[in-house]
């Protein structure tokens, strides 16, 4: 019999429905994996007792015939989602020890569907980073390694712990959040599937805020179908998030089970062919186009002329919103307090000691671009460029149904590489940020391995609130690619 931890989320749910395994057995098998692979540092807080309690309650519900969509399925939760009674840190010293007395809407939806939490995963501090190296609790190690090279690689970021936990078979699925690529890029680095839904599809209520006009929760899993099942449970209108869309939740899993792309027009944006992308990734992208074509789709070249400006515009909008959002950490209401001789010094001491380097840098950039006299030159300009980026996508989607691009310009890099200059690190998100700026849904699907044996993903971007087409195309790509890669030793 296949080990419980090797099953996909859908297979695991089916096994429990057949009573081949109880939720308690399933959670114990996964908690054992958490024990075995603790060295990856994927979790900030493990919650084994709570997990067993939730699994017991799940078995009791099933016995009464009340099984939900994700009944008994163990999940890891990015430590940016507030969880009632369980420490939530955002990987920052300033929130260390913070125990929310409430539950985020997305996680509440998952528990309502019967899922079981095994712990809270590590991330870049306040989700600001592309490597997971900015966490106050130390970086996460990618379970993948280059062939014949024992150096530790980063899992990507910011949702690096969530991606590593799924790639290392510690859980069949997890939650992440994506502001500029924080789900899609780590999914690509770790050889798994990661989906950023349309802005407004999942509630942001109870998710520690970074850049409110961009932040969006989404799922990680090892298959497209599993990712769809998770999104199904996470999504939905929430009156507590005024930007959450009042739309019904479609049957995402059905879309993922129907990889029919005959006649689907797949746009290939020519501006995504940029210097600095590895030749292997360009070749993989071409291969992806051929795969979808062989499945009956119709590739067409499209133009997104403002692509190269998405990244610099993002690095105005995101820090500006971050500097406003993070003003709340003042040492008065929650989190760290470092005393001072007066109130201002208390603020300065607390924030100086509580925030890490990258967070401080972004707060300062944000403060500067929003300061008197500079608002028009920076923030307004960026929002204008953002309007042009959104218009590019609208025009492209008049000609095609979905876009195919690389997810990241490189495979996973080693811890310490790219750390010298912040801008080099920012370039990692060049393919994911444009869709973020336009609020569009995007998914990363593992398609192949590079010459070093590291996984590479391709990204599919869809129209606003058309995750179904994205999932359908992703399922077709997944089935054509037949990616069976698994990190050695996991």
């Amino acid at each position, binding site marked *: 019999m296949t080990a419980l931890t090797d099953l996909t989320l859908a297979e695991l749910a089916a096994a429990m429905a057949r009573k081949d395994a109880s939720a308690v057995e399933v959670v114990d098998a996964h908690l054992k994996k958490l024990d075995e692979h603790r060295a990856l540092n994927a979790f900030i807080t493990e919650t084994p007792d709570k997990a067993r309690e939730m699994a017991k309650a799940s078995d009791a519900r099933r016995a009464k015939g009340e099984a939900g969509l994700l009944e008994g399925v163990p999940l890891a939760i990015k430590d940016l989602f507030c969880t009632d009674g369980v420490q939530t840190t955002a990987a920052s010293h300033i929130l260390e020890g*913070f*125990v929310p*007395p409430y539950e985020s809407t997305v996680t509440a939806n998952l528990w309502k569907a019967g899922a079981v939490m095994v712990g809270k995963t590590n991330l870049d501090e306040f989700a600001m980073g592309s490597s997971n190296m900015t966490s106050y609790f130390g970086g996460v190690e990618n379970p993948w390694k280059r062939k014949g090279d024992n150096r530790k690689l980063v899992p990507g970021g910011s949702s690096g712990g969530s991606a590593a936990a799924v790639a290392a078979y510690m859980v069949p699925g997890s939650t992440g959040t994506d502001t500029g690529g924080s789900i899609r890029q780590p999914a690509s680095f770790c050889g798994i599937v990661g989906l950023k839904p349309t*802005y*407004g599809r999942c509630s942001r209520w109870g998710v520690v805020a970074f850049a409110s*006009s961009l932040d969006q929760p989404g799922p990680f899993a090892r298959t497209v179908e599993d990712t769809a099942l998770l999104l199904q449970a996470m999504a939905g209108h929430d*009156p507590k998030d005024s*930007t959450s*869309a*009042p*739309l019904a939740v479609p049957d995402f899993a059905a879309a993922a089970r129907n990889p029919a792309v005959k006649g689907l027009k797949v746009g290939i944006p020519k501006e995504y062919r940029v210097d600095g992308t590895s030749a292997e990734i360009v070749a993989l992208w071409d291969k992806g186009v051929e795969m979808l074509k062989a499945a009956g789709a119709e590739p067409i070249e499209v133009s997104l002329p403002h692509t190269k*400006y998405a990244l*610099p*515009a993002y*690095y*105005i909008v995101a820090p500006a919103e971050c500097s406003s959002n993070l*003003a709340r950490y*003042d*040492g*008065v*209401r*929650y*989190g*760290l*307090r470092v*005393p*001072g001789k*007066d*109130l*201002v010094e*208390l603020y*300065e*001491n607390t*924030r*100086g*000691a509580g925030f890490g380097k990258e967070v*401080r*840098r972004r*707060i*300062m*950039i944000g*403060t*500067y671009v929003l*300061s008197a006299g500079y608002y028009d030159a920076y923030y*307004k*300009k960026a*929002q*204008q*460029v*953002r*309007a*042009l980026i*959104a218009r590019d996508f609208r025009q492209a989607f008049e000609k095609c149904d979905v876009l195919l691009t690389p997810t990241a310009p490189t495979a996973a890099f080693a811890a310490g590489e790219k750390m010298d*200059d*912040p*801008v080099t690190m920012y370039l990692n998100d060049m393919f994911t940020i444009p869709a973020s700026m*336009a*609020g569009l849904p995007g998914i990363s699907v593992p398609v192949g391995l590079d010459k070093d044996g590291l996984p590479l993903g391709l990204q599919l971007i869809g129209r*606003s*609130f058309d995750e179904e087409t994205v999932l359908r195309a992703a399922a077709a790509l997944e089935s054509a690619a037949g990616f069976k890669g698994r990190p050695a030793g996991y």
Partner: protein
Amino acid sequence: MSLDKDTVARIARLARLKVPEEELSTLAGELSGILAWIEQLNEVDTKDVAPLASVSDVTLPMRADKVTDGGIAGNVLANAPGGAVYVDPTDKNAGGFFTVPKVVE
């Protein structure tokens, strides 16, 4: 745009961040680098382009102006790093206060 140490110190003050003196020049270099890279946006003609305020195509609903939550002062004050003072220590939800250093002499 190149930032000098004094400007960085002023931004830090505005952002209520204590930055040690010895970090100011490194930060000035890093922030200047980021801002110089952002300058490329000036190549884009944005005349008559309305700034994008929301990416959502969906009209967001209004809700009734009603109180839907409350009576949880105990929860609100539960994580106060300086401790909280309660109006009625036997009923934390009756209300209370965060504590801060003395502001008024």
